[in-house]
């Protein structure tokens, strides 16, 4: 029972992060019918932006984790030392990383995807893989290939729960922030005029144009939103597990993509649900079977969905109209 509870807690915390990334896949798919394979790498860039910002803002380096070098070197960048490590620092770091990645997302859309939009969807897909490789390898050049250790932004402690399980305070914070971000997204998509325009664009691009919507701007906005959420996920992951490296986005990105497909690609609540399910399944497998299968779970799920429910849990079957 305590294993179950413990793994459930871990799974929800991990799953919330997959959900945040899956939302970016699903929203971009919604408006462009494009699987943005570079999305996982934007998440990586988000973690690195968080790393430099945190050090710049003067958070404690990661010496205590056995790392020296990098954290201290980067610390002075923004004239650091101004802010005490705290929850506020973590939030500021996350919000700034989100803003930077939103801009990066818009730039990627503008210069990589928009020029090929008039060609086939395969062209866009190959372009996305190209952008992904560019970010991964560019990341190794710019950030360095060796792993870095995210500074501790606030002190963590374990809180014991009934039944022998415990929860780390960082996990609670990650979960709360992820939920707040998802509620905010939900409000943007379903309660604002821009959100309504996003839904219109994702349903019928040409009709949306006829409403006077500048569809290019809505598509750019969608990239900004998705990339900001990915950046938030990057920072939140780094708060939980401080080791970050330029290839960290590959596997997590693929798993989040599976989460989006599981929920029904293009469906926003589906992406949230899919992320949670993948996270929980993964930690359960680690807890009850073997950590060896940790990374295989998501892909086993992918095969099962494609076989039995290709439209995903919440997706509707696309009707081919003549």
């Amino acid at each position, binding site marked *: 029972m305590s294993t179950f509870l413990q793994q459930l807690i871990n799974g929800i915390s991990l799953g919330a992060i997959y959900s945040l990334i899956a939302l970016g896949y699903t929203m971009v798919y919604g408006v462009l019918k494009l699987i943005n394979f570079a999305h996982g790498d934007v998440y990586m860039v988000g973690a690195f932006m968080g790393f430099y910002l945190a050090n710049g803002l003067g958070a404690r380096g990661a010496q205590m984790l056995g790392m020296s070098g990098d954290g201290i070197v980067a610390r002075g960048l923004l004239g650091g030392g101004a802010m005490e490590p705290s929850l506020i620092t973590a939030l500021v770091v996350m919000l700034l990383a989100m803003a930077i990645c939103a801009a990066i997302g818009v730039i990627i859309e503008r210069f990589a995807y928009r020029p090929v939009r008039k060609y086939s969807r395969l062209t866009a897909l190959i372009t996305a893989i190209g952008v992904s490789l560019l970010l991964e390898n560019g990341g190794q050049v710019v950030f360095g290939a060796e792993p870095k250790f995210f500074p501790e932004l606030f002190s963590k402690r374990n809180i014991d729960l009934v039944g022998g399980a415990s929860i780390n305070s960082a996990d609670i914070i990650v979960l709360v922030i992820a939920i707040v971000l998802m509620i905010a997204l939900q409000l943007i998509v379903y309660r604002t*005029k821009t959100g*309504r*325009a996003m*839904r*219109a664009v*994702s*349903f*019928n691009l*040409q*009709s*949306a*144009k*006829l*409403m*006077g*919507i*500048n*569809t290019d701007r809505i598509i750019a906005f969608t990239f900004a939103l998705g990339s900001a959420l990915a950046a938030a996920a990057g920072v939140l992951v780094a708060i939980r597990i401080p080791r970050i490296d330029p290839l960290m986005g590959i596997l997590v990105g693929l798993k989040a993509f599976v989460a989006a497909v599981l929920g029904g690609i293009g469906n926003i609540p589906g992406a949230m649900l899919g992320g949670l399910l993948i996270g929980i399944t993964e930690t359960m497998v680690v807890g009850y079977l073997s950590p060896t299968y940790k990374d295989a779970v998501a892909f086993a799920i992918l095969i099962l969905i494609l076989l039995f429910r290709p439209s995903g849990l919440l997706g509707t079957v696309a009707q081919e109209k003549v």
Partner: protein
Amino acid sequence: MLTLDNVSVNYGAIEALTGISLHVEQGEVVTLIGANGAGKTTTLRTITGLLEPRSGKITFEGENIGGKPTHKLVAQGISMSPEGRGVFANLTVWENLQMGAYLSRNKLQIAADMERAFKMFPRLKERESQKAGTLSGGEQQMLAMGRALMSNPRLLLLDEPSLGLAPLVVHTIFQAIDEIKSKGTTILLVEQNAHAALGHSDRAYVLETGRIVMEGPSKDLANDPRIKEAYLGE
């Protein structure tokens, strides 16, 4: 108000429109009739900027609008109810109408326009909070027209508004067209239902395989033996 001068449009290597010229004057209802594949929808899509002409000139209120993006043309006063209605099935009727007023910031104006749409099509009021995808074909057409009017266009383009609808609903739609005209909105109407289109318009053009083959006052065309034989089935 609107002039097309020698406009040609291609779909890849296939020529869909071959040098068509037409004009629509302020306050008129002009109809474009012709068989399937004659280029009627292509003409409307070119006017609204969804397709780019290969050659020729399109002017709206004296300004060359060829190549202008669709959303700017909407801002300039052109609105279209597209072929197949193009309602947002995932949005409610209310949200669809709101989308039609996307460019307006004046909430009072939008509310008034919404009332006007509901007055023209009371059925939409009953369905206000329903998803548009759950509406019948006729109701979707009413929604598409109501939505197109939400931007208060000076030129309204209607693409096959009566297609696939029951006779009673077709009657409602054409009544609405008369009402829209009476309020001063200029209309360019594409129709396969030549009989009704000629009965509710001032002038007409006949399109055949991408060319205009006849034009004139609708009354005259309705009595023309060639039109009677080819389009009115008499």
